[in-house]
């Protein structure tokens, strides 16, 4: 584009012809990326389309070559069937039993810790924060086996405690998110509060947290999504089927040589919908949370 412009400036000639060609090049240069973007959007959406399409098929339509792309009339019966085929609502409730305390624990612990790292000037603070961040680089597979042994010795194996309690002790990633946010609040506000006799805890509760609502929402959503999606944790620590979380229980459909794909996809659709809704509703905080961690850290 730039070169065409420069070339045009350099050589006066059939200006109209050049201008027309420049127009075409510009138009093609502008349209192709847009088309590519829409193709990408469609490609990324395709698996969801296949999921929903299968979720609405009758059993005999599921195994067809070529496939029936849009089943008509849709077989809505798959949804009640799928949700009773596995104890779907029990699994959902089980997941909530972990997710709700996990979210509370994460918010409580991470805001406290982040306040310490962000707002209290003390020797050794930055070193400790560096250690905190570096724990993110350690593969979870390293601690997986000893954590299992430890929780088994504590008698927590087979309960939800191993999946809940660690959330009350902060998580490096969310501490980092909160710290980044807390640092943007002017220190003068804290100083003024100290002069007024406010304790550090009072500053956190009365000044910092009220202004940190967006980041609290982000971390709460991340944590909820993390628990909702967690597969490995429940796989290791949960023993009985009636305790399964949804992420673990969904795989019941795979227990057969030829799974009932229409039911499996119906249950998967229902499991995915809350996450999608949540994301749509809180898209901005989600995206801000992600990009905050990236290059700007």
């Amino acid at each position, binding site marked *: 584009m*730039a*070169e065409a412009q420069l070339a045009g400036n350099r050589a006066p000639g059939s200006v109209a012809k050049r201008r027309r060609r420049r127009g075409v090049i510009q138009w093609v240069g502008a349209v192709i990326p*847009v088309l590519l*973007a*829409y193709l*990408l959007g469609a490609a*990324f959406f395709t*698996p969801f389309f*296949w*999921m929903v399409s*299968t979720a609405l098929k009758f059993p005999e339509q599921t*195994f*067809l*070559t*070529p496939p029936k792309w849009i089943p008509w009339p849709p077989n809505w019966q798959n949804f009640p069937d799928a949700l009773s085929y596995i104890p779907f609502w029990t699994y959902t409730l089980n997941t909530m039993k972990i997710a709700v305390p996990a979210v509370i624990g994460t918010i409580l*612990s991470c805001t*406290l*810790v982040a306040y*310490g790292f962000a707002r209290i000037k*003390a020797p050794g603070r930055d070193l400790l924060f560096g*250690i905190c961040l570096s*724990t993110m*680089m*350690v*593969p979870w*597979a*390293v601690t*997986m*086996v*000893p*954590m299992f*042994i430890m929780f088994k010795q504590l008698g927590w194996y087979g309960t939800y405690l191993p999946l809940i309690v*660690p959330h*009350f*002790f*902060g998580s490096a990633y969310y501490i980092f998110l909160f710290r980044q946010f807390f640092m943007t609040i002017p220190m003068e506000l804290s100083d003024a509060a100290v002069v007024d006799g406010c*304790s550090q*805890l009072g500053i956190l509760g009365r000044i910092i947290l009220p202004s940190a609502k967006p980041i609290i929402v982000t971390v709460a959503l991340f944590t909820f*999504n993390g628990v*909702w*999606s967690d*597969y*490995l944790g429940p796989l*290791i620590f949960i023993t009985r089927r009636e305790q399964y979380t949804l*992420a673990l229980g969904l795989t019941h*459909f*795979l227990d057969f040589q030829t799974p009932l794909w229409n039911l499996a*996809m119906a249950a*998967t659709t229902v*499991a*995915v919908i809350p*996450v*999608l809704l949540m*994301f749509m509703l809180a*898209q901005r905080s989600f*995206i801000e949370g992600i*990009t905050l*961690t990236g*290059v*700007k850290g």
Partner: protein
Amino acid sequence: MAVAAGTRTRAPRTLTPKTRSFLTMLAFISPWLIGFLWFFIYPTLSSLYYSLTEYNILQSAKWIGLENYADLMHDRAFWNSLGNTVYYTVISVPLNIVVAFTIAAILNRPMPARALMRTLVYVPVVVPITATAMIWMWLFNANWGMLNALLDLVGIKGPAWLGSPSWSKPSLIFMQTWLVGGSILIYLAALQDVPRSLYEAAEVDGANALHKLLNVTIPMVTPAFLFSLLTGLIGAFQVFATAWIMTNGGPVKSTEFYVYYLYMNGFRFFRMGYASAMAWLLFGLVLIVSFFTFRTSARWVYYGGQS
């Protein structure tokens, strides 16, 4: 919280302000500090100890020195799992960086419905991995799956995907490109931060689109490349859940990855010591690779924008 308040009020007057603030800070970060000792230092060290023992949970651990490590060196399944993981990592990580950057570059231009497109490419990331695995198993299905149906439309006979030893790893790598949304967002943010003045200066110098990409855009987003390279490497070394759900490590152990074999040893064969030795070798591998990446990053990462 009681601790935090207590330290502050009970601190004797003789403490210097520095000590006082240190104790206050310590009180605030105490949840993390306790968690760090309880869920990180203790498990890491005990894992080192277990790696030197034979331990099946039922009987107490028996010290055997470096035997687990020596056994691993002769374990063909171990080398197979390491080979599978290296294969997966070496292809998946660079591929995902290229794919994510390309998508970000396309979506960085103004266009109608751009927000919708960004949502579409990001949304797979928030889908539970179980759901992702199940959707893709069905997409990959050799007989009735959508991928082979689409290939059929253009006259190509599709492979067996997850059912074929030579296609199983490429299939999982392909699926992983559906999950690059996080990197896309980071690149988009990095692209937004490139000062417009740099492009204008390049245009004055007669740069075309390719020159601008190579000499302005890419150098300016290298910190984002480093970030996604590191997180991508650590993630790829630990690939597990997808293989566990979708292929059970097969066919013919072609998707038995490192952590998969580690998990089998720990939780199926109850060879906790052996699994711990594997964990420590993985830890060492990740440390070496991260260290190497950081060391070379000085040569290719450009922090000019930040200083």
